[in-house]
């Protein structure tokens, strides 16, 4: 059972109750997923990107806690109308945390995962185009690594679960 008290801010609570830009986007230019349900923490972003490489629209779906939902929601608002380059450079997890009025420290990873998912989407967009701009580093950023780390953890967890599943059958 979880035991850490979570003093969520009014903003987190508002976004949890009324998330903005929620739901699947049928005509998305790029879709990126980060996290894993085994970790109880997963986000999907749908981005509509125009020819000038501006994010016209962003929507999300989230399997996670209130902080996960709130940070994903605020990120869709923050990146809307930005060029891919500005979104990459300016939307940091610290800014996301500030925008929701702060998060309990155990929830920082929610903001990091949300930014990781956006960066993954942008990288994917250029990979699909076949050209990578010089402002996208070859190395994964801190936020992208966080997403990978969570997914790796999910794999380890699933391996351990196989043992448990054998028990069930």
């Amino acid at each position, binding site marked *: *059972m*979880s*035991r*850490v*008290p*979570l*003093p*969520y*801010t*009014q903003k987190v*609570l508002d976004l*949890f*109750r009324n*998330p903005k830009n*929620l*739901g*699947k986007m049928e005509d998305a230019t790029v879709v990126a*997923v980060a996290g*894993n*349900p*085994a*970790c*109880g*923490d*997963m*986000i*999907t972003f749908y981005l509509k990107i125009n020819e000038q490489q501006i994010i016209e629209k962003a929507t999300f*779906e*989230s*399997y*996670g*806690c*209130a902080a*996960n*939902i709130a940070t994903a929601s605020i990120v869709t608002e923050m990146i809307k109308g930005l060029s891919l380059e500005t979104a990459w450079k300016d939307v940091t997890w610290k800014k996301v945390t500030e925008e929701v009025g702060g998060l*309990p420290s*155990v*929830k920082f*990873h929610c903001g990091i995962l949300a930014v990781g998912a956006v960066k993954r989407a942008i990288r994917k967009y250029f990979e699909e185009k076949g050209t990578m701009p010089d402002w996208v580093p070859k190395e994964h950023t801190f936020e992208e690594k966080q997403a990978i780390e*969570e997914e790796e*953890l*999910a794999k380890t*967890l*699933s391996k351990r*679960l196989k043992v*448990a*599943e054998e*028990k*069930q059958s």
Partner: protein
Amino acid sequence: MKQLLKAHEGLTHEVYLDNENSTMVPKEVVDAMLPYYNKKGYGNPTLTHKPGWEAFETIMESQQQLSKFVGAKILEELTLTPGETEANNLALMGAAFALKSKGRKILISEIEPINVLHVAEMLQKFGFTTSKIPVNTEGVVDLEKLKEAMSKETIIVSISTVNNELGTIEPVKEAASIVKDINPESVFHTDASDAYGRIPVNVQDSKVDMATVSSYKILGPRGIGALYIKEGVNVEKILEGQIGTQKLWPGVENTPLIVGFTKASELAFQNFDGNVNRMRTLRDKLVNGIFNELTDVKLNGATGEKRSPDNANISFLRCEGEALTIELSLSGIYVSSGSACSRRLLQPSHVLVAIGRKFSEAHGSILMKTTRYMTEEDIAYVLEVLPKAVGRIRGIVGQTGVD
């Protein structure tokens, strides 16, 4: 936190179902306690003056009553502690230190509460080895595996009478017999906190040597519990300090809490069958209602007679538990979840994992316990709100949480 509380303003109905983690204390229990703060018995029971003697008299009477409720032969078999955690620590550590020359092996079930699990693991630093006995998918401990693991070297075995998360009733009587047959010198401990007041508990019915009971688990005040230790069983103290009426637990006795624990026990047992039937009826309505209203739900733990009458533990698939607890709280329904969400470890309840639940199923688990004070209207309100709450959270998930 103030803003969070403000968001709850204007609630018309509130239902507290998180009786696993703390409870409301009924007025009659509080009323019984209050005089002992400033009217009588507020003295230290080991000192020679009227308020001290009053305290001594009150504690002894309470201890006598509590002894009868658990089936102890004499009141000295009961040690009052500040709660279940302390009683379980005393049982495992105290017995381990007393028996270390006879062997070094400890056995517990893999679904023991944290205050048994972590103590048993901690004792490994002091040269003991701890092994965990597996459970089946209902959370029933495997007696064959217990028999295999048990040896002359095993000095302590601890298996809860009722698992706190699943409500599964364990075959403690059979387990204690197996343990004692193989090593009569070992001690058998059971945490009976979740059995006390829900199923008949009498330490004379089995070969148990030690049993833990807790006040807040039966709607008494927090901060008080007891460990039954059969006469002749050797347990060392684990804390040092001024010894008063409790030979194995130092410090000044908390007379009002002891009175509250006793009153709460009295109320639980004075109409035991009626109380249990009420809990069971409400719990069954709750569980059946949820299964009628919602798809993709799974009951965690045993069914029927193998389950404690108050416990409902349900996994809502495609629905993260922490988000659901908050959504329900905003409508005045208070529950807890086995989700790992507030822990960076990303590890959900070890109990749910032990019965073979997938991690995503454990993250969507909600634990609820009914009490005799709840009403049919309370359950109806929960059944009205819960499907909407689950529906909204699942709506945010979309296709993302499907694995």
